[in-house]
Structures are given as C-alpha cells and as structure tokens.
C-alpha cells in the first residue's frame, strides 16, 4: 500500500508543475497590468512605471519564473503584489473557510443524495421516484449561485433564520456555523442532485443482479437485501462520483463564496484575477492544484482499499 501511495505521489509532481507553469504563463499573457490595477486610472505613466519596477515586472519572464519556482520549493508563497501582505498568511486565513464549506457540502450532498437515490430506486416508477427524479433534475439544472440567492431570500430575508452573507469569525463557533450553513446547503443541494441520480441508477443495476435475487430467495428481509447486499456494491460508483464532485465543488465554491461574500480561497482568487495580482493568483492555484491532486490521490486510495485488484 505504501508503495502504491508513493507511486501516486510521484505521479502528482509533473501534474503539479504543469499546472503552476501554465498559470504562471497565462496570467502574464492576458492583457492588464498589476501596476495599473493597483494605481487606478488616475495615476500617471511615470507612477505606473515606478510601481512596475518595484513589483519586479520589468524582469525577464524566465527570471521571474525561476524566482517563482525557487520560492515555491522553499515554501515561500511571496507577498501580494497589490497589498504586500504575505500570501501564506492570506491563504492561511482563507483556507479554513473554503475547507469547512466544501467538507460540509460534501457531507450534505452525500447524506441526502444516497438515501434519496436508494429510496427512489427501490420505489422505481412510483410517486416517490417521480418526485425524486424531478427534484434531482432540477438540482442539476439550477446554477449554484442562483440557488444560493434563492436560499438567502428564503432563510435569511423572509424567515430571518440565518445571516445572508459573510464568513463569521473562526474564533466564534456559533457565528461561524451560522454563516456556513447557507452556502454549504447551496453546494450540498447541487451535489445531492447528482449523487441521488447516480445512487438510483447504481442501485437499479445492482438490484437486477443474480445475487440479490438469491438473497431474496433465501428469505432475507427487503431492508437487509437493500442495505447489506445491494447498497454495498452500489457504493463503488458512488464513491467515484463523490470524488469527482468534491473536485468540482471546489470550482463551484468560487461563485458561492462571491455570492455569500465568504472570505475563502474562491473569493480571494476572483479578487486576484481582477487585480492582476500575479503572485497571489499563482499561490492560490498552487493550493487548488494541491487540493485536486490530494482528492484524486484519496479516491485512488479508496479504490485500492475497496477493490484490491486496482492496487496491482
């Protein structure tokens, strides 16, 4: 198993390097200048030039790249080109907000999605199945940011149960939980729709298998047949989709963090793009890439654990 983990880790290095290199180049190819973004349209060209020099933007591109990689290897994410704040500190502040959001969304998505999928598969072509299918199709069709606004209107404006926006302080549990529920519910409901559809089709496939028929023929209760025999086999594709969704949730979290004004990595990334803050953007992408690589690694490990043949 250790060898397998090491192998996956080594394979992640070129992926990681490729992504950060692409990000490094793309942010510099797109038009727009961090110095202009920082100084605004009022500043004279002289002031802009002076700031470009201070920001190191006049250095040759290969030299900037070497500096970037060198700092990265040393674990130095550098300073924001705009505010000069240490990026490590800014990411350290933003990361917990994004992590709690995605983890909670995954939990909501799976604990709601799997039972709905299983239930609608068992009740195939009955009223519950129709309702479940319509709901999951709706969930897949509604963009996360729009669903977020609808939930704010319902739970924050009309019912006044929850705060509409913000992250809440990390040092105040009540504050923090109250601020994460709505965005997590938004992402979780979108994920739930996908998980429910997949769980339903996986269960339907399994329920047709001979061993399920055998279990029934043995006189086992339907509940035992469904949960102990059928669901276990159906879980393999569900785990796979959960992993893929966890990755795509990171993408969705960007829009949700903007809508809910949460100070997470997604909002930080959007700000960095708008301000052309190259160093911040590169560092955020490094963290995101690390996330995706880690989740893929985790999925591979779970596969290896669920089906030992994969490890070999």
């Amino acid at each position, binding site marked *: 198993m250790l060898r397998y983990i090491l192998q996956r880790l080594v394979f992640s290095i070129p992926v990681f390097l490729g992504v950060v290199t692409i990000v490094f180049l793309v942010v510099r190819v797109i038009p727009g200048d961090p110095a202009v973004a920082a100084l605004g349209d009022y500043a004279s060209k002289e002031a802009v030039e002076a700031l470009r020099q201070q920001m190191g933007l006049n250095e040759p591109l290969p030299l900037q790249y070497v500096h970037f990689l060198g700092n990265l290897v040393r674990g130095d994410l550098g300073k924001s080109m705009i505010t000069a704040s240490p990026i490590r500190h800014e990411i350290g502040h933003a990361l917990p907000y994004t992590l709690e959001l995605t983890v909670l969304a995954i939990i909501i998505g799976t604990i709601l999605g799997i039972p*709905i999928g299983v239930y609608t598969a068992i009740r195939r072509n009955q009223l519950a199945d129709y309702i479940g299918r319509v709901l999951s199709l709706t969930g897949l069709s509604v963009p996360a940011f729009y669903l977020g606004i609808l939930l704010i209107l319902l739970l924050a404006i009309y019912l006044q*149960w929850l*705060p509409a*926006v913000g992250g809440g302080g990390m040092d105040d549990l009540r504050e923090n939980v109250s601020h994460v529920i709505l965005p997590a519910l938004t992402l979780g409901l979108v994920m739930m729709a996908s998980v429910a559809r997949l769980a339903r089709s996986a269960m339907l496939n399994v329920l047709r298998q001979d061993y399920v028929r055998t279990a029934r023929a043995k006189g086992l209760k339907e509940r035992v047949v469904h949960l102990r025999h059928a669901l276990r086999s159906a879980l393999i594709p569900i785990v796979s989709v959960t992993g893929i969704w966890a990755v795509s949730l990171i993408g969705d979290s960007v829009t949700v963090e903007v809508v809910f004004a949460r100070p997470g990595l997604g*909002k930080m990334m959007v700000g960095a793009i*708008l301000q052309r803050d190259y160093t911040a953007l590169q560092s955020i992408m490094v963290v995101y890439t690390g996330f995706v690589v880690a989740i893929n690694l985790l999925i591979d490990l779970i596969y290896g654990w669920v089906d030992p043949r994969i490890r070999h």
Partner: protein
Amino acid sequence: MRTMLALGMALAVLCLLVAPHPADAAGILRIAQNTSDLRSMDPHFATTTQDRSLVDMIFNGLVRYKPGDGSVFEPDLATSLPTPRMEGGKQAWTFQLRKGVMCHPSPGVPSYELTSEDVVYSLKKSADKNRSAYAADYGGMTVEAPDAYTVKITLDKPVSPILFFANVANYSGGFIVCKKAAEKLGPDGMKTQPVGTGPFMFKSYSAQERVQLVANPAYFRGRPQLDGVDYRFMPDISSRELALRNGQLDVINGAPDKAWVDKMKGVSGVKVDVFGVGEVVTLNLNMTVAPLDKVEVRKAIAYGLDRDEFLALIGPGIAENVYSPVPAKFLAGGLTQAELAAKGLDYKTDLQKAKRLLAQAGYPNGFSMDLITSEQTGYRVLYESMQAQLAKVGIKVDLKLADHATMHSMIRKDANPLAIYIAWRPNADVYLTQFLHSDSIVVTGKKPNTNFSHYNKIDGLIEQARNETDQAKQVALWKEAQIKVLDDMVVYPIQYQNQVYARSTAVDYGHELISVLALYPGIDEKTRLTK
C-alpha cells in the same frame, strides 16, 4: 420521507440556534463597498473609490472639502484658509496648524502630536513618484516648516486657490500621514496599516473580507459618535442588497440604475441616497485615425447620438445629461446646455444632418469599425446603445467584449477610435490636462494618460488657465478651451452618473449629501446610528 422530514427539522432547529443577533453590532457602522479587496490604505496610493473612502475616515488634510458638499473648502489640520503672497515671482501659502492634533497610536509608535514636520514629510512623499501615485500633481512645490506649527508652501508658478487647495485637501495626495509611523511601517506596511489623525483608527484588515476601524477618542473635533466602522469588501450587488435587507449591513454601495433605486425605495427600513459628484461619461474620438480624422465625420457621429437614449439606460435623476467635458453642475469651468446651445455646440440629435455630414466627408453609405467594450455593465450598455444609435446613420460598430482591466489596457494602446470613458476628476484643470493636453496623448504623449482623441490644440489655454490666479479669468479660459474642443468635436460629453447608496434608516450621516469627492456618503465624527 421521514428521514428528509427529520433533516429539515434539524436544519430549522440549527438555524434558530445560530440565528444572527443584530444587537452584536451596536455602535459599529457596517458598510459594504463594491470591491473584492482593498488595494492600498496608504492614502497616496489610494486611487480607487473603495480605497479613497477608507482613507477618508482615517486621515486629514490641511484643508478639507466640507462634509457632504465638495464645492466648499474649510480648514482641517490648518486653523484657517490662507491667502497667498508673491515672493520673488513665486507664490507662497502659509498654514498655521491646529495644536493638540494627535497621530493614532501604532505598533512601536505611541500616539504623538502632529507638527509641521509631519506635514512636510507627507507632502514631500506625495511629490515622490516612488511613494505616491499623485506625484505629477506636486511638481514645482517647495514645502518648509518655519516652526512646529507653521507650514510654508511655495509654488514656482502661481495658481488660483481652487487649484491649490485641491492639492492640500483631504483627497488624493493631500492626505497627511504621520512621519514616525510611516517611517516605522515602511512603504509596504502603510498599505495595510494606515496611521493618520482622523476620526477613526485602523484596527484590523482581513484580506478579501473587511477592514475594521475604531473610534479615535482623541480626535480633535471630539470623539466620534460611532464606536467604529466595519468596512466589508463585497463585489456582488445582490449580496450587498440582501445583507442590507437582512440587517447585516447598515450602508451599501448600490447600483446606478433607476429600477434598482425604485425597488430599494420600496423596502421598509431602507433609505436610498443619490448624490454627486457625478462621474462624467464622455465619448473620445481619435482624430488621427481615418475616417475620424475628418471633422465632418466626428460631427456626424455627435449628431447621430442621442443623450436621452443613453440617459434612459440608467434613468433620469441617477444620471443627467452633460454638455461639456467638465460637468457644470459640480465644477467651475463647465458649460451649461444653454451656454453651448447659444453657440450651436450642444449637438442636439439630428440624423439627417449626420447623414449629410457623412456624405460631405465621402461616406454616404457610412463605414464600419471594431471597438472593445468592458464586460462591466456600466460600460457595456453604453457601448451597445452607441452601436444601435450609430447604425441609424449607417455607421456599423462591431463590439468585442473584454474584461474590465483588459479594456483599460487596450484603450491605452489606441485600440478604440471611439473610446467611452467614465471618470471623476477633482477640477477642470485635471480633466482638461488628462483628457485633452497633448502631453497626455495615449501611447505617444510625453506623459501618456487618457487623451484618447490625440487632441493637441488647447495646450496653451490649459496652461494659461492653470497659472491664472483670478478665478473669473481662469473659468473663462477653461470655457474657451472646451468650446474649441466641442467645435473640433473630439469629445462628445454624454452624461454624469451620480453615486447611489442605500442605508438603514437608523443611519444618520450627520451632514446633508450634495456632493462628495470620495464618491461615498462620507462617514465622520458626526455619523451615528439612531437605533
């Protein structure tokens, strides 16, 4: 189904347990601006509306714009507004400083009394291009400190009070920083740790989220009525609106759109403020590119456009038509519609005349051009409206969409022969210099700025007006310059767009809102929460 019901009930219970408590924020004004983060709280690098409004609460100038009314100067750190004296052909302004003005305490630098040494340091910093974005405005200025409470500023070339006070007021480079703190923090530290003398002191900055300010108990005008200000970065208008409705925010930057204003006026407990100063929208015509190099074509475009159509996009009251590049309503030197109509330069819409002018110029069937527009609604709708209006006279415009920073970058490389620009500048001299002086021509000017039309025929008038100390003569020169500009039709003034903010009815700004240069309502020691 039972599981779902149980989960729903669990969510409801959880919501009630963690429901927000509005009383938590008593005495703290919570304001959200349309931005994802700050850029700099060093006042001499604060160039965006969002940064300007922050530093406005933390710093003072030698003089200040009267709160809520940007047309009036009054003393701030100085005890009075001085009158200039001529000394050996140079103009000298001597300020007496208030005594007992305290700099905010900061890490490693306890609070101390601000003296002329700080003012000299600050104005020299404003004039240094490596330490200020406004250095160009401070050329030819010498600053001295004859004693601890006196500051003498000498200008190589005399200027009128209106231009001079703008450079030492609480705006842009005129903000006074505290020398010891600035030296201790260094240029990078000042971006996120401002130390001034204003009604509010910096408490904390959380990237992408907020800046927290606390009341300055030693403020020289008395302790502010608010305990502090919680300044949030929220780029999404829906989020800001919903948070105001939900009671999480007290003041928000609104949408410059009549439909939004009307909607918010109907919300209980919310008041909407629409006030100046208005950012001016102009269409800049590049006179060096065919076919715009022919004045008939430029005039045809002007007659083909309809200000009222542009106005309908935003709504009367939120925006107003403007007829000269300098807005007459807010700044000395602007021309009214009546003044320009008398000279036949108000360019009232006349499609037949536009077509005739195009035919005279050799384009009876019109022509086509490619333009870039920003994805930002404020710009995009203006470009789209212009596209539709010009199509009526046979001018076909192909629009390409770019993100906002890209558009700004591209138009500075002459990408748009017709460039729409939205900007506020503090006086007529800055407007005319940046948009119409030959030094400011994009790409090729000596100091490239925002002269997109490549105009070079009023340099003398701009410079003459700048050095004219008689204000009436100065205004006459500015007007003369703009009449020439409009006669050559290199700038078509479209409208000015007012500031739109919504607030809880519990917020009392402490002053009437007429015009605020910092483009936000102005929060000071008199601002209070009534509930």
